[in-house]
């Protein structure tokens, strides 16, 4: 039972991070390898807002999440926009470089020590008992619920709202979308903002649960296989992919070897690339587009 809970929690973490990869990829065909670092940045921003807005933990968390959104828009505006028209790989390498830059900058600003944003917010991380004798921390439970809420919100946004439809249109055919008067740069900035927003939520919730240091960026990278397994251009796929990767990881760690933790997602990734490189729900044409 505990194993099942662990799988669900890990799957929720991966799913919440993976939707950031999917959002950016399906609108602009760029793979954002700085996603882990951007996520870490939002978690560190939470530390700062918590000390600025003391006494209102919820306000601090919301402020940090919104700052994460702003960071995403800024990254697009000042960096990725300049990579328009370059080869896709140049753009991907730019995100890699951005990730390294962020890692250095974060240590310079917040130091490399382990930090506990939970304490600076003044919250308690209670351990909840579930039926079946399993236990889950309050932060993890919030994370699972939050992931559900984010995915519902994203589905609703992409299906029902004007901006969501524009976003999908740009993803399908940027030229036609631009012809119809959709501002491409605005839409790309929106995708980046949403992506860092959801990633930031994930970063903050993980940091609340298990403390905050540089290793959190590795979790961001490990979530990427989840996005690819489901199909890089499919949100529903990211959910299923996260579940598959998390199941494989938890079971292999438990039954085979704890050292496998960092490599299982990538083994799943390789298996998927051999069998069905465009992912479970992805479109096959994606392989030729990049």
């Amino acid at each position: 039972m505990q194993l099942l809970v662990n799988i669900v929690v890990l799957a929720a973490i991966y799913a919440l991070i993976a939707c950031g990869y999917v959002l950016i990829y399906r609108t602009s065909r760029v793979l954002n390898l700085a996603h882990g670092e951007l996520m870490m940045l939002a978690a560190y921003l939470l530390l700062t807002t918590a000390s600025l807005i003391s006494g209102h933990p919820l306000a601090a968390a919301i402020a940090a999440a919104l700052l994460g959104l702003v960071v995403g828009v800024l990254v697009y505006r000042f960096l990725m926009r300049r990579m328009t028209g370059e080869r896709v790989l140049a753009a991907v390498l730019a995100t890699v470089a951005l990730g390294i830059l962020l890692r250095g900058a974060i240590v310079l600003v917040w130091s490399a020590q382990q930090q506990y944003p939970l304490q600076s917010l003044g919250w308690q991380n209670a351990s909840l008992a579930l039926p079946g004798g399993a236990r889950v921390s309050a932060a993890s439970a919030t994370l699972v619920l939050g992931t559900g809420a984010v995915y519902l919100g994203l589905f609703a946004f992409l299906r029902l709202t004007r901006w969501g439809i524009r976003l999908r249109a740009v993803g399908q055919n940027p030229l036609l979308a631009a012809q119809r008067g959709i501002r491409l740069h605005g839409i790309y900035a929106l995708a980046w903002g949403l992506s860092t927003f959801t990633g930031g939520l994930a970063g903050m919730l993980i940091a609340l649960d298990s403390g905050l240091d540089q290793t959190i960026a590795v979790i961001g990278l490990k979530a990427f296989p989840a996005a690819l397994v489901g199909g890089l251009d499919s949100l529903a796929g990211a959910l299923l992919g996260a579940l598959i990767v998390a199941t494989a990881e938890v079971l292999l760690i438990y039954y085979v070897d704890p050292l496998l933790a960092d490599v299982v997602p990538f083994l799943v990734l390789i298996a998927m690339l051999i069998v069905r490189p465009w992912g479970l729900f992805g479109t096959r044409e994606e392989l030729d587009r990049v």
Partner: protein
Amino acid sequence: MPHASGYFRTTYARDIRLVDTRTQLGSLAVLVLALAVLPWAGSPFLLDLANQFLLASIGAVALMLLTGYAGQVSLGHAGLLAAGAFTAGILFKEFGAPFWVTLPAAAVTGAMLGVVFGLPSLRLRGLYLAVSTLALHFVVIYLGGEYEARRGFSTGIVIDPPRIGGLAVVDARIWYFVLLAAATLTLLLALNLLRTRTGRAWRAIRDHETVAEALGISVPAYKLAAFVVSSTLTAMAGALFAYYRGFVSVEAFSLFLSIQYVAMVIIGGMGSLLGALFGAGFVTLFPYLIEFLLQALPTPGRFANLVFAVNYGAFGLVMLLFLVFEPQGLVGIWRRIRDWFLLWPLKQKPLER
């Protein structure tokens, strides 16, 4: 563009000659002389830097062949270096194998891994290929870590200095000549490969795969060949690295190292062996430059424990600046300067034929 006036290449052999004009021959002789006296002219620190640069240049040239010429992106270069280093380390530790066994063994491991790394390239392109090499990097690192943990070398494997002809290579000067020979051979191999059928096939594949196939080039075979050549060279560089440090540990082969090698190729300039050398030099010297600059600050003590972070941040920034403002890399800057002198007093380059 011709490097001398009134000079025409009249035969095909002349066109692909490595050393073209008398000026080039002269400057090459000066370079050889300078490289030969460097160990006695420079300080031990300078010598260590030169050795590091030579080591990095082997890996950078290998990656340049793969990425810059064959157009196949690899984010798993550190994994290949690690494979070479661990082959040498394990053979030495388990069987006490000498240098002249471990180095070829590392090459064979590299070649086999090259096939493994290259197989996805037959089906995947661009981004997906980059991701598959990234994943393979983690697998290789995991295997290395597993070996360390299982055999109880959790801090790393210690390797004795290699013996070549009864002579233990300990002294930095001897290392310098060993590495110089290795780097020169790598460079010559690369230069020669690039002016043969293989090199032309790689460039054709890079520029347009479908057209290359239509021209009768066996795309899968040449792609695999590019991966195999590149990984073999890289694994040998990894083995040399292990011997030079006298120590192998997975810690040394993080994803950051892969990115550093990719950065060498980008900062140096895609599609140029000279660029690979420039890039290797730049990336090797960069941390020392940062340290020097921090020392020069009015309050050096404040940043003493942050050198690592400053290094990281500045490295990312420089890589970004090159990607955004100088995609041609250092070699692009070098070409502009050279052309300015060659063309003076004129400004415009003649149209390319």
